């Protein structure tokens, strides 16, 4: 028990996602289900989100038709399953600017958003490059940046230059520059002594990124970075080491939100809409939303 409750909330999913996308080098190893989730942190008088998903109204049908993204539900429905509403959210940590993480800011009208300044600055740079280098700005919706302008004008967007301790009491933000994206970050929740949780964003997609098979090199497990990095896989491995250090190398405390098997490791339930709620931890006095 501790100060904060944490839930991972599924809002959509891809049934068949190629495994090499989540695990570097896993070529020709088939497909895995890829849940789309955000995390919710509640406690100390705050309701905070880690990422906000994407806005289905803008291009949801296109995603569904072409890329097999299914069963999107709004934050109102998803948060409603744990007795909250989007207007209750006062703080949002954007781990990176990909559309499926930063794409629905309008649904959180009272929240202040935090993002690394470098995440914005280097996307600006990437978008200025010639067409032949356009790979470097995949998955960013200019519309999200445009909506970010509105947030900034309303003084609801905070751009960070590196780490920020205690952005909320005992909640820290940690950058992983030039990794999955240019200014990715992860969120650390220090719930109490030896009770720290890391919400990894897309720096870790699945358990295997932390506990990959090391058989080929005669070790039990090793870090295997995610498949997509506009920065480097080396920086992903280094960030993984930092995250693991923060949780005393207890791998279960690093939470990969794209991991379907979270339900095997933490109490979970499936909602009437067919989406999963996973309860990572409960604050003192907080009731379970999965039992």
């Amino acid at each position, binding site marked *: 028990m501790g100060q904060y409750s944490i839930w991972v909330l599924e809002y959509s999913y891809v049934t068949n996602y190629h495994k090499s996308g989540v695990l570097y080098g896993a070529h020709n190893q088939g497909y895995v289900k890829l849940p789309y989730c955000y995390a919710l942190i509640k406690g100390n008088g705050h309701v905070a989100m880690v990422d906000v998903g994407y806005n289905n109204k803008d291009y949801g049908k296109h995603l569904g038709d072409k890329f097999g993204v299914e069963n999107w539900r709004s934050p109102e429905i998803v948060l409603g399953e744990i007795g909250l509403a989007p207007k209750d959210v006062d703080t949002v940590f954007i781990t990176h600017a*990909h559309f499926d993480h930063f794409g629905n800011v309008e649904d959180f009208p009272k929240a202040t958003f935090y993002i690394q300044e470098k995440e914005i600055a280097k996307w600006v740079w990437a978008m200025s490059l010639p067409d032949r280098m356009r790979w470097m700005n995949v998955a960013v919706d200019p519309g999200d940046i445009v909506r970010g302008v509105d947030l900034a004008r309303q003084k609801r967007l905070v751009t960070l230059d590196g780490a920020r301790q205690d952005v909320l009491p005992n909640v820290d933000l940690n950058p992983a520059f030039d990794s999955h994206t240019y200014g990715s970050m992860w969120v650390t929740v220090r719930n109490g002594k030896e009770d720290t949780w890391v919400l990894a964003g897309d720096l870790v997609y699945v358990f295997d990124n932390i506990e990959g098979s090391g058989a080929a090199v005669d070790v039990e497990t090793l870090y295997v970075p995610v498949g997509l990095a506009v920065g480097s896989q080396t920086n992903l491995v280094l960030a993984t080491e930092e995250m693991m250090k923060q949780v005393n190398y207890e791998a279960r405390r690093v939470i990969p939100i794209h991991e379907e098997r979270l339900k095997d490791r933490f109490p979970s339930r499936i909602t009437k809409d067919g989406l999963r709620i996973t309860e990572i931890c409960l604050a003192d006095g907080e009731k379970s939303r999965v039992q």
Partner: protein
Amino acid sequence: MADMSAKHFFERAVTIHRYDCELIAAAPSDAEGGETKQAIENDPAAQEAVVRYVVAARPIYDGLRRLIGQVAGLLVLAEAGGRRDVLDLPDIPAARERWAEVEQRLGALQAPGGLEGHLARLETAHATLGEVLDDFGLARLQRDWQQHLDRAGDRIKHAYAWLQAASEPRAGMTPVDFNHACCSCAQRWRHQGGNDGAIFDLGA
């Protein structure tokens, strides 16, 4: 080149607009109407003209898409950080150069019958973006820089709305480049071994 599936280009589902987008309410172009669509379907030469138009229009669309992202990002950096020095970054004249390149391409683009509306939407997005860049220039020169950036913030939303109105997923014109995206590599039609017949899906 073109095959009969060219008709998909005209099946303009409003998949990437907000349900309340004012641009949806605008009258559709002729090509989106039934009669012209039917005429093009029955005319291979007209279909070829559509293909040529799409091939030429797509880099224009993409140039506008990235310019809007770039300029919006500069606005975020200036507004969120209260940083006037953003106005002195070389990114702004670079954006102006790219805008001029897009203008040249637009000038050479000819819309076949029925697609004039699409071309007009690209032109409006481009012109609005030009006004945003003008705002940047004024902000750099004048003391009330914040006021000019506020106006740029309003205008960039309009530019993006026009870009959305010119979006056509089947022609590879989407606001987000989904290639290799972490969310989207599971292209349904590919792993199911099928092809949905979208001849204008030029790799997006």
